[in-house]
């Protein structure tokens, strides 16, 4: 278990180093930040001084070392455009992002499981077929396009929900549903397929032979065993969710990390982008590490791999 943990830790660290190096080099290659900061009438002398005071005249690897050292101390630099600490910007936007992603994720997993079970209970009924259609639709169109259509229907045509922005619960509905729909579709299909497979097994026949009602068999015995793939899939969906949240936040003008990063990219404020990418990557690596270790604790077979 110790060598397994160490191996996973080393891997997580190397991933973080790789990502931070890559993002730093991309930011470095994107151009001279002094051109962004310096006033138009600055002389070459003043620009050189500015470059020196920011440490931009040092070797690249030295700059990277300084960046990482500062990052480890919780300092991701100061935005060239907004003149605010990058960590402050991220801390300001993170709660909104968590709120949106959390709402979407919980809705997708819980509702996906419930609807998947319902599809099996009322097999080939209207609900089953409607959900099959919906899940295909949600796979073949871009998620943000579904969002645009939902805005047209619910905000423009029927005027029951706000178009964009954040505030009360009503603002959360459309972006969260948009973000959740593709995952919900996949979840429903997964649970449905998993339950239909479980229904073939011997213990289900035993449960039926025992005289349990169909409902008891489905909800008490089959549904429970269809939960395992849901948990595995839920972990995989998280990466997808964060990726698409970047676009969805932009569509709905949601004041989260995603919209901030996209705006920073468009304004070429790359220190902010670098910081956001690094924070998200770190969060991901930590979550993956925790999941790996948790698996190893629960299932001893994993450790020997």
């Amino acid at each position: 278990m110790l060598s397994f943990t160490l191996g996973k830790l080393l891997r997580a660290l190397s991933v973080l180093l790789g990502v931070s190096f890559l993002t730093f080099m991309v930011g470095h290659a994107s151009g001279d930040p002094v051109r962004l900061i310096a006033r138009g009438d600055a002389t070459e002398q003043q620009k050189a001084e500015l470059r020196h005071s920011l440490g931009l005249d040092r070797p690249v690897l030295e700059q990277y070392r300084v960046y990482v050292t500062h990052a480890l101390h919780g300092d991701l630099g100061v935005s060239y455009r907004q003149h605010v600490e990058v960590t402050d910007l991220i801390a300001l936007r993170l709660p909104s992002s968590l709120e949106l992603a959390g709402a979407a994720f919980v809705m997708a997993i819980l509702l996906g499981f419930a609807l998947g079970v319902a599809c099996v209970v009322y097999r080939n009924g209207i609900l089953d077929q409607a959900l099959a259609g919906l899940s295909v639709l949600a796979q073949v169109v871009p998620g943000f396009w579904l969002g645009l259509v939902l805005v047209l229907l619910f905000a423009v045509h029927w005027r029951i929900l706000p178009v964009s922005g954040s505030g009360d619960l009503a603002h959360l509905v459309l972006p969260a549903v948009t973000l959740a729909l593709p995952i919900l579709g996949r979840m429903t299909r997964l649970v449905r397929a998993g339950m239909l497979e479980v229904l073939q097994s011997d213990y289900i026949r035993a449960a039926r032979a025992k005289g349990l009602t169909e409902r008891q068999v489905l909800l008490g015995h089959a549904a429970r065993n269809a939960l395992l793939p849901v948990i595995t899939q839920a972990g995989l969906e998280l990466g997808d969710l964060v990726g698409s949240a970047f676009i969805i936040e932009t569509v709905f003008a949601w004041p989260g990390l995603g919209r901030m990063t996209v705006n920073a990219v468009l304004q070429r404020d790359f220190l902010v982008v670098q910081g956001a990418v690094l924070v998200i990557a770190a969060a991901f690596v930590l979550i993956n590490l925790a999941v790996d270790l948790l698996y190893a604790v629960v299932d001893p077979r994993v450790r020997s791999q």
Partner: protein
Amino acid sequence: MSAFWARLIRCPPARRGSLILVIVTFIALAAPVLVPTDPWKVEPEARLLPPMSRSIAVTGAHPTLHVLGTDSVGRDVLSRLMYGSRVSLTVGFTAMVLSALFGSLLGLVSGYFGGIVEALTGWLIDVQLSFPFLLLAIFLLGALGGGTAAVILILALATWVNYARIVRAQTLSIKNQGYVEAAHATGAGVGRVLFVHILPNTLAPVCVVASFSMAQAILTEAGLSFLGVGLDPSTPSWGTMLNDGRDYLLTAWWISTMPGIAIGFTVLGVMSLGEGLRELLDPRGAS
């Protein structure tokens, strides 16, 4: 081979998928003949016209019918959609081929040789899967500039992992089989064994992965162009059209809804074909 095609055509999802792809490819190839008007022609006086309206470009001339309306600078939406199919198919297909080549090669080599190559590939796969790639894509394209070639490269980088994993697994199980040993024994070199005896036998699952990754590439291109870091805004692609219509969503719904439908139709075709291939090649998963 002809038996394979016959089976493919009898498989309902594959038939549906091929039909859709034939239609979209036909539109893409014949776009210059099919388009009602020049997709680049800007007509300021005919901007934001709703579907089925007519515009008169030159006074006294025959009015042009805009079946799907016009966009914010008066370009015909239907014509741009038709030309957009060329861009989406080319970008999706090229990205798919590139990533299939790169991923399969890496999977083949790491599965066959093992050791340090395998460890390195495993690490690369880990890095890629351990955080949302779209994030890095937005950053790379935003910092270093977009454009068609850059987008294709990024999309290829986004999907190579799937090929590498499946080809590696296949290679591991094939390399110990009798016919590979026989090839070695008759004096075949490593290159010959890899490319003549092993690689062709991994093709079936690679085709399935390819169709799904092409679908993913088309969707991702739309997303990147929508954000404004993808293709050049003047390129008539479905993604850039979605971006065009973003600011006019409340007044001119057709500009961004139409490209979405086109994307959905095309991706449905690609995915159905992939599903059909999977059913054919893996009878176990067909049920």
